[in-house]
Structure formats: structure tokens, C-alpha cells
């Protein structure tokens, strides 16, 4: 219940859960102390502490942040570089970054300035989804306050280093969360993903080296600098080889949906306990561990540690770590149809398997849902999970879409089979 154990949300607890919007109130709770400490150190040392902490990307992919940073060219001749915060939170079932930005805007501003210093960037953008109006207002106010306090702008804290920070608001489309699509969108283009390599760390925004980090990832960093890599590693309390805490959450028909900061590697069962369990009269049928693009898991998987590697071994991904539950009286077929409709709508249309394959899966699922499926439809769906899988498409959108489908086919095949029309009956009629 303190700065020592909950680096993400302790200030909210100290402020009785109320948003911490004012810079003086934030500074009274160790605000900008991490930045002040970092700016007195050589940037390479700041990078090393983040690398040693083993912080992994909280946007869903789990890539080590320090490793990502280490790919950025450094030195006096390295030219313009950009730091971009991926605040385009649109993964269905995910509401953690909204809470962090609405309630702790200065914590993100501090994290951005500190991280930009570590990679010696002079300009940064918070790519915020357009629908987060309140977050935009509060972040802009926080940036203005920080600028007035010489924490953003020219010669920050007398260091001789300049950094400008802007909030860029988007205008919809899930694909903007993909980091190269995000860069295209930020440049004022259609958000089609780019070919990789080159990776953004080498050629990103306007062709320059660019780091894209998620909100929750960045927000950890001031505390890591203030308290050290070893402290951060210890936060998982032996529950996981991963470091730090995680904002876990639950939605669906649970008694108390919400968000909780817990040691990373806490179990699904612990999250469900905080959520008060399923609503009265319902039992758990299946759950998505961290967004629409993760494989379904079963109740028996609730005892697994919610960390990147454990959930991967169970055949899914931790993703964003906010679980969604399907109740015993809810249809898996309808849930999967809803998921694939989402992915089909949000496909950017750039590559054929995704543009054509996803609507095809929706048509098959709708037919099954109406009980009008044909023999072979399930086999076509299985084929699609391979044809739209990893390595077959331009980006991770379609492979992500196939995760809930393939796992639902694996665990709940009978529900799909029940959607095949009984042809003999049709003939007799």
C-alpha cells in the first residue's frame, strides 16, 4: 500500500483514490523526483538501469523495454530522434491506460520526459485515441504545468537538454495501436502498417529513430530510476521471473469489475477474487486473459501465474492482462462471432488474407449461429486459422484475430458442430 510496493497507483491511494491533477500535489508525493535524479546521470546509465530492471512492454507483446531502447543510435551525431507513447488503447477489454492518464497525468508526463532524456530525444508525442477526451484535457494541462516549472521545454532543469512534448489525438481505428501503423497515422497518413525491418528504432517517425512505448510501460520508469532495478525485480515477490507489478483487471459478468495493481505473476484466481467472482447464479465457462487477440482459457487455467511466459505455455498470451469472462449461459459461438466482426471491421485492408479472410470467418460464424452451417464449415474455419496465422500476413492483426477462434474451436467444438444444419431434416421437409 505504498510507493515501495505499488509504483503505478500508490499516489492514488495516498490521495484517497481521487485523481492527482495538480503539479504541486504530484510533487508532494515524490513527483518528478525520478526525473530530477535521472537528469543528473549520464543517459547511458539511465538506459542501463531500465535494462537491468527487466521491465517488459505492458502494451501486450512483452518486449524488454531496455533492449528496445538500446537499439536507438546514441552520440552527438545521432540526429533527430523521437519518443512516442502508444496511448491508443483500443484492445477490447482494456481500460488501464485510460485510468492512468485520467487520474495520474503528471506521472506519464514525467515518464515521457525521463525516457526521452535516456534516449536523448528532443521531441515526443503522446498518441492518444481520439475518444479519450478527458485524458487529452488533463494531459495537456499537465504538460502546460510542467513547462511552467521548466520540466518540459528548453534547458530542462538547467541540464542544457531540450524536450518538447505534444498530445496527438487520433480519430479512431484499432490498427493505430500497431506501432508502425501508429507512426503512419502520426505522420498524417492512412494507418497501414509498415514493412519491418527496418524497425522504428532505426527508421520510424519521418524516417528517424523512434521509440514507441505503451502508457503503463512508461509509467513504471520514474520509480525504477528512483528506487533501482533490484527493487523493481523484487516487486513480483517470487511469483514470476518477470519484474514489477501489473495493472490487472476483470470485466464481463463478474460481481465487481475493476482494475488492481498486483505483483506480476499473480494468478487469474486472485484477480477473480478481487472481482468478487461471477455474478450470482453464474459460473465461469471461459476467459480471455488479456484482450480480444488472446486465446481463450478454461477455468482450470485460473491458477496459472499471469505473466508472459506462463500464459504463453498454456497456449495463450497475457496480452494486456485485463481478463474478460464468459459465463456458463453465454454462447461461445456468439462471442467468437463478435470478436471476428470486430477484427474484420478494423482490418486496414492492406493485405489480402486479412481483408478477405476475416469477413469470410464472420459469414461462416453467423451461419453457424443461425444453425445454417454447412458440412465442412468448421474445417474452413480451421483452415483460416492457419492461412491468417503468424507469418502469413503483413502485421499481427489477423494472427491476433485467429487466437480466440482457434482456442474456441479447440475447447468448445461441440457448440460449433451444433450450428451445422441437419441436411436430412431439410431434405425430408
Amino acid at each position, binding site marked *: 500500500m505504498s510507493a515501495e510496493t505499488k509504483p503505478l497507483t500508490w499516489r492514488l491511494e495516498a490521495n484517497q483514490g481521487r485523481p492527482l491533477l495538480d503539479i504541486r500535489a504530484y510533487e508532494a508525493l515524490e513527483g518528478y523526483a525520478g526525473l530530477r535524479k535521472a537528469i543528473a546521470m549520464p543517459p547511458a546509465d539511465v538506459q542501463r538501469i531500465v535494462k537491468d530492471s527487466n521491465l517488459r512492454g505492458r502494451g501486450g507483446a512483452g518486449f524488454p523495454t531496455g533492449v528496445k531502447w538500446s537499439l536507438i543510435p546514441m552520440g552527438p551525431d545521432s540526429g*533527430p530522434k523521437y519518443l512516442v507513447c502508444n496511448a491508443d*488503447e*483500443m*484492445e*477490447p*477489454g*482494456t*481500460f488501464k*491506460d*485510460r485510468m492512468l492518464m485520467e487520474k495520474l497525468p503528471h506521472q506519464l508526463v514525467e515518464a515521457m520526459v525521463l525516457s526521452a532524456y535516456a534516449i536523448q530525444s528532443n*521531441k515526443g508525442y503522446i498518441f492518444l*485515441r*481520439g*475518444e*479519450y*477526451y478527458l485524458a487529452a484535457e488533463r494531459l495537456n494541462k499537465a504538460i502546460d504545468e510542467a513547462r511552467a516549472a521548466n520540466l518540459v521545454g528548453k534547458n530542462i532543469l538547467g541540464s542544457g537538454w531540450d524536450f518538447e512534448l*505534444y498530445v*496527438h*489525438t*487520433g*480519430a*479512431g*481505428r*484499432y490498427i493505430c495501436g500497431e506501432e508502425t501503423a501508429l507512426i503512419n*497515422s*502520426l*505522420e*498524417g*497518413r*492512412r*494507418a497501414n502498417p509498415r514493412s519491418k525491418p527496418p524497425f522504428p528504432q532505426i527508421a520510424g517517425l*519521418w524516417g528517424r529513430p523512434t521509440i514507441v512505448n505503451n502508457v503503463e510501460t512508461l509509467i513504471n520508469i520514474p520509480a525504477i530510476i528512483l528506487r533501482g532495478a533490484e527493487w523493481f525485480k523484487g516487486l513480483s515477490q517470487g511469483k514470476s521471473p518477470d519484474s514489477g507489478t501489473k495493472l490487472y*483487471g*476483470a*470485466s*464481463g*459478468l463478474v460481481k465487481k*469489475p*475493476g*482494475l488492481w495493481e498486483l505483483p506480476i505473476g499473480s494468478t487469474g484466481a486472485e484477480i477473480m477474487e478481487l472481482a468478487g467472482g461471477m455474478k450470482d447464479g453464474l459460473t465461469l465457462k471461459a476467459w*480471455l486473459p488479456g484482450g*480480444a487477440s488472446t486465446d481463450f482459457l478454461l477455468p482450470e487455467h485460473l491458477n496459472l501465474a499471469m505473466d508472459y511466459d506462463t500464459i504463453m505455455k498454456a497456449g495463450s498470451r497475457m496480452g494486456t492482462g*485485463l481478463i*474478460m*469472462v*464468459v*459465463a456458463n449461459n*453465454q454462447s461461445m459461438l*456468439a*462471442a467468437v462471432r*463478435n*470478436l471476428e*466482426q*470486430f477484427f474484420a*471491421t*478494423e482490418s*486496414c485492408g492492406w493485405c489480402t488474407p486479412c481483408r478477405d479472410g476475416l469477413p469470410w470467418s464472420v459469414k461462416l460464424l453467423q451461419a453457424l449461429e443461425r444453425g445454417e452451417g454447412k458440412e465442412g464449415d468448421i474445417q474452413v474455419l480451421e483452415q483460416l486459422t492457419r492461412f491468417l496465422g503468424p507469418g502469413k500476413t503483413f502485421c499481427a492483426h489477423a494472427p491476433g484475430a485467429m487466437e480466440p477462434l482457434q482456442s474456441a474451436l479447440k475447447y468448445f467444438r461441440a457448440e460449433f458442430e451444433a450450428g451445422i444444419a441437419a441436411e436430412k431434416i431439410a431434405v425430408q421437409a
Partner: protein
Amino acid sequence: MSTAKPNPKVIVTTRGESYELATADREAIEHAMHHYDDARAASIDALKIVQARHGWVPDGAISAIGAVLGIPGSDVDGVATFYNRIYRQPVGRHVISLCDSIACHLTGYDELAAAFRQKLGIQFGQTTADGRFTLLPICCLGNCDKGPTLLIDEDTHGPVEISQISALLEQYT
């Protein structure tokens, strides 16, 4: 009689509609351009500025924005048509966006959507006859602990019960 000298600020579209950016809008676009190393990056900002004035982005504004940013109007329209929060046709005074993603699907979206369609007498993508409301779908609003959820203009509401719809709509005249 001599013909008037063409005003370079006035854009005439192929359909013959003319459009001139309001001074305040032009200034706001030019201000947004300074945030970026390339003016094109202000495309979305510019479209939002024009949309804030009209509720949508008329054809003529597309080329007018392109002229300010120094890019072809076709590029501006490419952006305008890609993003679902930019409207290229008129909408009602208030836009209701119902989240139809999985968390809301699991907490009652289907029933809520049916109730909204019935209450407003329109389908998704349509505007009420009095021009008051447009009903649109939207993907996950990041308010999943309060599903089913929706956005009216810039306000997020949730969880929304069917019995609350009338009172909710009364807030938007």
C-alpha cells in the same frame, strides 16, 4: 465587364461547391502544423477543426485543408475516409456511439442496441428525422468495467440500463 480575379483561398470542387476556410479554422490548422516536423501530420487535426465547425467535413473543405498543408486533396480525403471518427456526410446534432466490442457484448450490448434503435426509430448509420441524433457503432471505448457503455458526443456513459435511455437522451437537446 471584367471577371473577378480568382480568390486563391476559395476552393471550388469538381461538383461546383465553393468552400473557404474560416479564418479561425485556418489559424488553428496553422498552429497545429507547428507541432510536427512535416505539415502533413496535421491532417487529422485539420479535419477535426473543420468538423468541429460543421459537424462533418464537406467536400470543399478537403481541398482547402490540402492547400493549407501543402498536400493533394486526395491525400486528405484518404485520411478522412480511413478514420471512423471523421464524418464525410452530415450527422445529427448529437452522435451516439454504442460500443459493440466483446466486453459490452458480454454485458448486454445486443439488448441495449435494439432498445436504442427502437427508441430513436433509426438503424445504425442513420440520423433521426429531426436531425437530433445519429446512431453509430464504435469499437471498445476502454470503459469495460462499466459495460454496456456508449459515447454521446464527448461524454462516456456506462453501465447503461435500458430503463435509463430516455433520461439520458433528454440531456442532449
